[in-house]
């Protein structure tokens, strides 16, 4: 617990205190809640409700026809006997999967970008620099605190989304069907891996740049391509077999853990102090 080893108790203390500060910041969780609501509640609600209410009209028939471009394995999974049933099932299961990655990545990187540089800007980095907490403990604590809000929002949004999907689409396909196995794997296995990759990179930036504004700008450059990759991989995880999903998740975790390990050096006491050569 002490010496040169990790003191997990201190790591959790750093994480808990950071999360507490976020919870107390209305200007943070209000936009976060709105973002989650748009992606997981409002858009799916409007879209799925429209399709199931429209009936067997030409537009729905056309969308149903486009489902043929999906991989055969994905097509085999689609349930429902009517065009609107099959269309709403496909949208619920396949279209919104990447959103589950975009929301937590956006939220977590916004938090992560400000976390280390914010300590320096507020002057509280001086307190951490003089504390017995190790730099790795601070880094991992900050990483956890950045990961949790995004993941928590996503899980709450995911729960709401599951309810919406089951209530609106369920009657069309013979009962409650969501989440599917692939969705469970995506949320519990693939998503945390991608979050870890994104945050390990963003925290490195946050430890090095001079201001929160610079960190936000730079993190955008990192997270945009990452979101694109995650979007594609999340789609693949949903379209493919559970094995494919497990493999994608394993790769994400491997990259994420390696990147986190290498990123631990981003926290230097001198950088927390904000002195000239530490920046």
């Amino acid at each position, binding site marked *: 617990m*002490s010496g040169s080893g990790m003191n997990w*108790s201190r790591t959790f*203390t750093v994480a808990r205190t950071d999360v507490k500060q976020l919870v*107390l910041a209305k200007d943070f969780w209000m936009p976060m809640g709105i973002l989650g609501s748009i992606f997981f509640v409002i858009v799916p609600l409007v879209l799925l409700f429209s399709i199931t209410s429209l009936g067997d009209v030409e537009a729905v028939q056309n969308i149903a026809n486009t489902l043929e471009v999906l991989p055969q394995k994905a097509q085999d999974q689609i349930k429902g006997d009517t065009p609107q049933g099959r269309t709403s099932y496909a949208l619920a299961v396949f279209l919104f999967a990447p959103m589950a990655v975009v929301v937590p990545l956006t939220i977590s990187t916004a938090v992560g970008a400000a976390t280390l540089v914010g300590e320096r800007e*507020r002057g509280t980095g001086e*307190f951490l620099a*003089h504390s*017995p907490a190790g730099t790795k403990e601070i880094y991992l604590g900050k990483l956890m605190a950045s990961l949790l809000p995004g993941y928590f929002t996503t899980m709450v949004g995911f729960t709401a989304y599951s309810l919406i999907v089951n209530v609106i689409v369920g009657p069309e396909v013979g009962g409650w069907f969501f989440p599917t196995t692939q969705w469970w794997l995506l949320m519990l296995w693939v998503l945390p891996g991608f979050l870890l990759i994104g945050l390990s990179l963003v925290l490195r930036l946050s430890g090095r740049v001079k201001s929160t504004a610079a960190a936000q700008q730079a993190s955008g450059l990192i997270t945009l391509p990452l979101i694109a990759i995650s979007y594609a991989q999340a789609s693949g995880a949903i379209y493919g077999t559970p094995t494919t999903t497990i493999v994608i998740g394993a790769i994400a975790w491997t990259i994420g853990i390696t990147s986190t390990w290498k990123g631990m050096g981003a926290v230097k*006491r001198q950088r927390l102090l904000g002195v*000239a050569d530490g920046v």
Partner: protein
Amino acid sequence: MGRVSSPPAPPAVSLRGIHKSFNDVPALVDLDVVAPDGRITVLLGPNGAGKTTAIRVVTGAMEPDAGTVRTLGLDPDADGEEVRHACGVVSAKPALYDRLTGLDNLRYAAELHGVDKRIIDERIRAAAGRFGIEHALHSQVGGYSTGMKTRLALARSVLHDPRLLLFDEPTSGLDPESAQAVLQLIRDMTTDGHTVVMCTHHLVEAEGLADHVVVLDAGTDLVSGRPDDLIKGFWPDDSVEIAVEGNPTLDDLTVLPGVIRIERSKRGTRVILERPDVTPDVVEALVRAGHRIRMVNPHDPTLEELYFAVRRSARDLGETATQEVMS
């Protein structure tokens, strides 16, 4: 068997030959600082003298480019966790989390310092009570006054019962009453056996508080030691104060040997002499210039006088050295 005297306690802080630069700008240059155990050591110096950097080096928050650091006998580079656990720091800005309550701030510090969970509440109550902030513990720190923030930062620094307390300008931004109260609290801490190292550029604060003084300028130590010893060393003879009626400038008098300085105030002008034997010459010069002398008294030089004298003499030495190099 005769009594064996115990060896003197090793210093709480020992900095030897410390160099530190930021982007090639020197911040500390061959700095030597020794802070005796169980005493209050005051680092005196103007802004930019290197006081804050010295404090940062002591805890290992900053690594020096060269030199040897020993804090409580340990090397902060190798034993950083142990060193920082034994230190309580109040930085120039209180470094508090404004969104959290005072209680949360204290709890965070206590947990990072590994205070036993069973006694955290008791420690927080004791520290908050000692610094008079127990009534505000459940309020957000963002709403605290500057004085309250300083008190909270002081309370936070003693929560884990550190052996060494490092205070960087602890009274900056405080009104005189709050500053006096904070200084009294710092004074009280050494009676509990703590070692205090405090930075300030307020000379009045150091007066009467410091057991040991280090005068810094441009990142280096000019003099260090007990204030009385330093004053005696600088002015071995008893100094003299001549009070002159009215408020004359007396600038031409400063060239006379033995005149330390001339002070002008509403009450009149005072001439401070570094030794009694120059008194007749100065009195004669004053009378010849038509000034009336109100009184002649023995004078005890203050730390403030020492500080300015040391800095003046360092400047003079620097100018002489420059002239020698140029010639």
